[in-house]
């Protein structure tokens, strides 16, 4: 059964660094690059997250997937070594390194045994600043990515989510898939990849975060040495992006599968919006954990769905609140009706104190549990930086969640679940 992520920590102790986990050290280099280091003696490991503000947010349908494509070619080799040599060198550190494009950023992430932190940082810098981007690698990586797109299309849940975001976001780039499409990748040539890399890989667009069993001063000095020589990239004009307008439509389509997929939702606030915490609580009340309403009512009580959850991921521009069911084709109609009843209920009846308290405990517990491994700690450090919300965000978020009242939940439910977009995928 799905007993999802392992979560804990009481609300009261949330935000308190654990034994051995120090506050992060932050430094902005003269060239604009930000470095964050957190010392964490929990295990003999180190993790690095290098985020660059480059992703689907800056893409268009014609070049969708280019940020991720660039990273796929980057890991094929640097000025100093081939992709195979890089893989071998990283494996010798007990490590791993990978690079992907995401929505609001792209990431090079690496981790290894902490005694190799210096080597790991060196390989990260080499990959970021001296990728070979060889013309001969483009075709092979394109084929590989097209294979992944195909795999994603074959997966009913992934396909349903992609269709949902495309429908909900319309002309906004959040409608695009991070992987792109076979057509868009087919149009992107070597020159376009190099130009895209040069446009975004600039010191002032980069944030380097390190977390692990390391000494912050040593890491800072090494990071300065590796990244300090980079020159500023100069001015950058942000493209204008149309505000997404929830179309409130319902789309149904078919593909071979055992399970039916039902997604219902709307446009929701961005990460730094005053309503963010209240919508997170709303999302948790509906679909957070096994005591969430969708799980209890639709799965536990009525057996109408196997998967019953809600998603509301933090992003820079308007987010999406998605209620999601995976169920048998026979139950699909009933399940969708029941889901809409739950939406109606949360928009009309105030949430009780116990339920509100459970949701907050779950939400903050999950959040705290997610910030324990060094990989996640490094990512969070860099993420809050590139999202521009500041390193005190975690604490502000905790306070904001605790302050959410029943009336706030009712208000945001009415506001953000008033117009609903629906995508249904039925097995063929």
């Amino acid at each position: 059964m799905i007993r999802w992520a392992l979560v804990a920590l009481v609300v009261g102790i949330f935000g308190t660094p654990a034994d051995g986990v120090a506050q992060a050290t932050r430094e902005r280099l003269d060239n604009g690059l930000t470095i964050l280091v957190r010392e964490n003696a929990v295990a003999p490991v180190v993790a690095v997250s290098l985020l660059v503000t480059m992703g689907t947010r800056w893409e268009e349908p014609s070049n969708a997937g280019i940020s991720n494509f660039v990273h796929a070619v980057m890991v094929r080799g640097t000025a100093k070594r081939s992709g195979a040599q890089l893989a071998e060198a990283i494996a010798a550190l007990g490590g791993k390194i990978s690079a992907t494009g995401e929505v609001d950023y792209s990431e090079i992430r690496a981790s290894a045994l902490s005694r190799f932190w210096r080597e790991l940082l060196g390989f990260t810098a080499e990959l970021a600043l001296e990728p070979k981007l060889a013309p001969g690698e483009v075709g092979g990586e394109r084929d590989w990515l097209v294979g992944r797109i195909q795999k994603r299309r074959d997966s009913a849940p992934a396909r349903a989510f992609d269709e949902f975001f495309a429908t909900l976001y319309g002309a906004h780039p959040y409608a695009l898939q991070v992987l792109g499409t076979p057509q868009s990748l087919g149009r992107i040539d070597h020159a376009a990849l190099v130009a895209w890399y040069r446009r975004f890989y600039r010191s002032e667009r980069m944030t380097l975060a390190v977390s692990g069993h390391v000494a912050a001063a040593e890491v800072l000095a090494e990071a300065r040495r590796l990244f300090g020589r980079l020159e500023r990239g100069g001015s950058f004009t942000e493209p204008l992006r149309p505000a997404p307008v929830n179309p409130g439509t319902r789309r149904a389509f078919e593909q071979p599968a055992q399970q039916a997929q039902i997604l219902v939702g709307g446009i929701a606030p961005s990460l730094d919006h005053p309503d963010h915490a209240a919508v997170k609580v709303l999302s948790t009340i509906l679909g957070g954990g096994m005591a969430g309403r969708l799980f209890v009512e639709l799965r536990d009580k009525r057996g109408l769905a196997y998967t019953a959850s809600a998603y509301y991921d933090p992003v820079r521009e308007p987010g999406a609140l998605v209620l999601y069911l995976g169920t048998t084709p026979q139950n699909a109609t009933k399940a969708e009706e029941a889901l809409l009843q739950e939406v109606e209920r949360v928009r009309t009846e105030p949430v009780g104190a116990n339920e509100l308290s459970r949701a907050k405990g779950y939400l903050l517990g999950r959040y705290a549990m997610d910030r324990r491994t060094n990989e996640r700690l490094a990512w969070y450090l860099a993420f809050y930086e590139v999202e521009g919300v500041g390193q005190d965000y975690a604490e502000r978020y905790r306070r904001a969640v605790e302050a959410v009242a029943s009336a706030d939940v009712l208000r945001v439910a009415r506001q953000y679940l008033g117009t609903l977009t629906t995508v249904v995928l039925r097995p063929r």
Partner: protein
Amino acid sequence: MWRPDRRAPAANGAVLVVLLLLAGCATVVGLRHGAVPKPAREVLPNGVVLIVQEHRASDVVALQLWMRMGGRDEAASELGLAHYIEHMLFKGTPTRPPGSIDTLVEGFGGASNAFTSYDTTHYDFVVPAAHVRGGIELLADLAVNASFPPGEIDNEKKVVFEEMNLIEDDPEKFLLRRLYEVSYSPHPYGRPLLGQREFIQKLTRDQLARFYRKHFVPRNMVLVVVGAVEPAQMRPLVDATFGRIAAAPPAPREAPAAPALDRTRRADVRRAEKQAYLGLAWRTAPTGNEDIYAVDLLTYILGDSPSSRLNQTVREQLRIVATIDAGYGAFEQAGLVTVTARLEPADLERAEAAILDVIRKVRAEGVTEAERQRALITAESSYAFDIETAEGLAKTYGQAETTWTLDNELGYLSRLRGITATQIQAVARKYFGDDNYARVRFVPEGASP
């Protein structure tokens, strides 16, 4: 992305990975700082084993109840019961009505999880350290007082059917499941852990309760406590809960032999996906067998990372697969090394031949010292990342105690270090032949393999 992938089917809708071979030890030579202390192991008078370790990575405690019972303990008339119990246990006890357990645990920011495998099942909580007493009381209550409310049993059937659909929709999970089926049938390791639809449909509360009473006895129970606790304070809590469970003899466990593999163990499955999947499996060492160390290193060398042989040859040089991985599933009665790949249907034959070539070369020429070293570092690293969280460490202990021994687990990395390249080549010769493997292929409809 490239963590070891010791894979085998497990019944849990969320994540498939059951850690089968325990890459770890608690006194890792490579730990320069803050080496993890040894866990305390005690046996209560009624047979419950208690393993406790202080771990202050954060202010939480992982509580895991491991049962020496899993899918392999089901009789032919009980298929799927171990997993069904896993679903039903959280539904309540006489003092805890349906729904109250999830609300309680989630309300104080904790979480629960449960897994069924062939040799074991386990029930996990992660809770704030302040709630350790409540957590242990809850686990002990679930261990003997589950009430299996009749209405809940019927509802849960639909959920289990959905879980079956979900696995079938995921080509990678389903490939592994079919590969185990083809490799082991009729041995219990070849059964689907979720059982068969027809049987689950007719399942009664009596059957469930009988199975529960037969297997949930103290001598089958291992309680693992890892987290921000004082170890000395745990025994009294456990004495007052698990210690009060009446002693009873566990049901005897059967040990049928796993069948030998040959070219008759083949299955081609037509699937809706556009890409093909290939899975090959060789019978190797079970837990408790001395060969596991060398087989584990060999698996790392073959297919664990981008620098592994299969990746470098079949993916990078020949470019005939999109992904390729090797995994080692070591169980008490048998082990299996699997190689799985995603590829174009036209390349199925070539890829299989290429995989066999890679293995043939290891048999003929052995592995290099650099490869052996990399495999060791990978094992050390895998363990170091596992112990970042209390639940990760608890899991290595629970798995070891139920399917192997805690001491073997604690000495694992140092044993690995003693394995030579010659020994790795020897297990390649002993277990990996040109004919003694099972094969499952997923072929897109309309394509010819």
